[in-house]
Each structure stands twice: as structure tokens, then as C-alpha cells.
């Protein structure tokens, strides 16, 4: 079975951004929010949230460079 055959993931792949990185960020986002709720604010959750934002911004900038 492929990853894209799983229920929620298949919906995101089908209706999402047609881009594996954005699709992954879309899927990982709620999980990170869930982790922050469960673990409260700590160094680990802050690092996770920070890494998420940095990856998002860097990828948008990368796409900007590719677009040029």
C-alpha cells in the first residue's frame, strides 16, 4: 500500500498544493499543534514550531528563486 492510499493523506494529495513539501507541511502542521497541546510549551515544542516556520519560509524563498 502506498502512502497516498491512506484516507486523510490521499485527500490532501488530491486536493492539496500538488507539491510534496507543501502537502507534507499541511499534514505535519496539525500534528505539531497536537504535540504542543500535549507537551505544553517547552524547549522541544518551541524548537519544533520554530523549525516548521523556518522550513516553510525557506521553501517559499527557494520556490521564489526557482521561479525567477
Amino acid at each position, binding site marked *: 500500500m502506498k502512502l497516498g492510499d491512506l484516507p486523510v493523506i490521499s485527500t490532501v494529495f488530491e486536493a492539496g*498544493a500538488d507539491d510534496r513539501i507543501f502537502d507534507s507541511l499541511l499534514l505535519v502542521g496539525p500534528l505539531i499543534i497536537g504535540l504542543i497541546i500535549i507537551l505544553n510549551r517547552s524547549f522541544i515544542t518551541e524548537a519544533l514550531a520554530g523549525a516548521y516556520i523556518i522550513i516553510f519560509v525557506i521553501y*517559499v524563498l527557494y*520556490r*521564489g528563486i*526557482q*521561479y525567477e
Partner: protein
Amino acid sequence: MLLGSIAFPVHYLILQGDLRNFYSDLQTRWVFGYMGIGSALLWGFLYYAGPYETPFSALRYGLFQFVSAATCTGFQTAVDSTNVALGRWPSYAQLTVAFGMFVGGAAGSTAGGIKLIRGLTLAKGIRYQIADVFYPETAIRRLKINGRRLSEEEASREFMEAAIIFVLWIAFLVVGAFVLLLTLPSGEYSLANVVFEVASAQGNVGLSSGITGPESLPAIGKITFLFHMWIGRLEIIPVLVMLRTVFKRGGLYQ
């Protein structure tokens, strides 16, 4: 807050990699420009004549409150427990925030208000109409808005639409202010408080000068705000069209 006041099609283009939209799109450019100018103005008001002692605290509250208002987010940091509530700011500072709520963010975003594109169409349209006096009747003129070159007929139509929304927004703001002034206890709230509160309701913002509350706002005021929030979200015209249909079909209009 700023991202939420940028149009969704521009979000899409930026995520596709077309980062030029941050400055090439008229509304997005103005989101940053107008938030910057408004925040700087509010900072100046709050520091030189207002309630904050240090320039940094005036900047902190001025910047946050203007962006919160103009993006129609509604987060309020200026409350009694953090020094001075919004409702006790100088009247001109309150009206600056109310202006932010009146204009709002970009059309096609989550923001309320009349929207930036209508404000810009009005400003450019007024300049276009005034300059018309100095051109001969045979001159062929175009109004440039957001990369589009509008013919006289198109320009007139877009200008008219923006002007209608603008006038209706102001008219309902005035009506709401009258109702509140009539129903609130006299001497308790200033005119700036009332205008601020009605602009907040009609712009679907949620900031408060202290009027809205379970005890402080009479039932008539609550019903008025219900109406303002409703027409503000639907941008007034659909509500008027619906009312016209109801009256016409009910035989009340003729």
C-alpha cells in the same frame, strides 16, 4: 495578522514562487504601506499627547493596536490591566484606530471594512475626475489601477461602486452612532468611543472602547450591533438588495 489581510489569490501566487506579488500587487503593497503609516501616526499620537511615558511602550501598543484594527483581527492589548484601555486613549488616537477598521485589509482576504482596493479606487478616481477639468473633451484618458488600464466607462463604473460602498458604510456608521448616543447613559462615553465601537462592529473587528458588555450596552444597542455586524460582513449592498426584494414582493415598495 498581516498575512490574513492579504488576498488569497496573492497567497497562492506567492506560494507558487512568484514573490514579486509582495510589491507588484497594489493591495498587498498598500497593506504594508498603510499599516506602516497608520502605526507610525498612532505611535506619535500616543507618545506625544497620550498616555504612554516611554516611546517603546507607545510603539508597542500603537503598532499592535493599529495592525489588529486594520487587519480586522480584533486582538486588544490596551486594556485596563495593561496600563490604559483603548477607550481612554485620546479621541484622535481612537479615531485613527477607527479609520483602520473602516478601511480594513485587501479585498479577497479575511478582513472587513470597505477594503483597500475601494479606498485606492476612490483616491485615484477623485484625482482622475479632478484632472479631467484640465483636459480637452476629445482627450482619451485611462485610469490605471493595479496594472489595469480602465476606459472612461470602466473607470466610472468602478469609481461609482467604490463610492456607493463608501457612502453606505459612512451612512450606517452615522445611524449606529446616533442610536448609541440616544440609548447610552449621557456623559458616560465620548463621541469618539461611540464611533470607534460602531466601526468595530461594522468592520467585524471586535476591538472595544468599553461600551460593549453584558451590563454596559442596552438591549437596543445590542440589536443595533447585530445589524451592523451582519451588514458589515455582507458588504451592505446584498442586504439592501434583499430588503428591496422583500419590500417589492410584499407590495411595500410601490
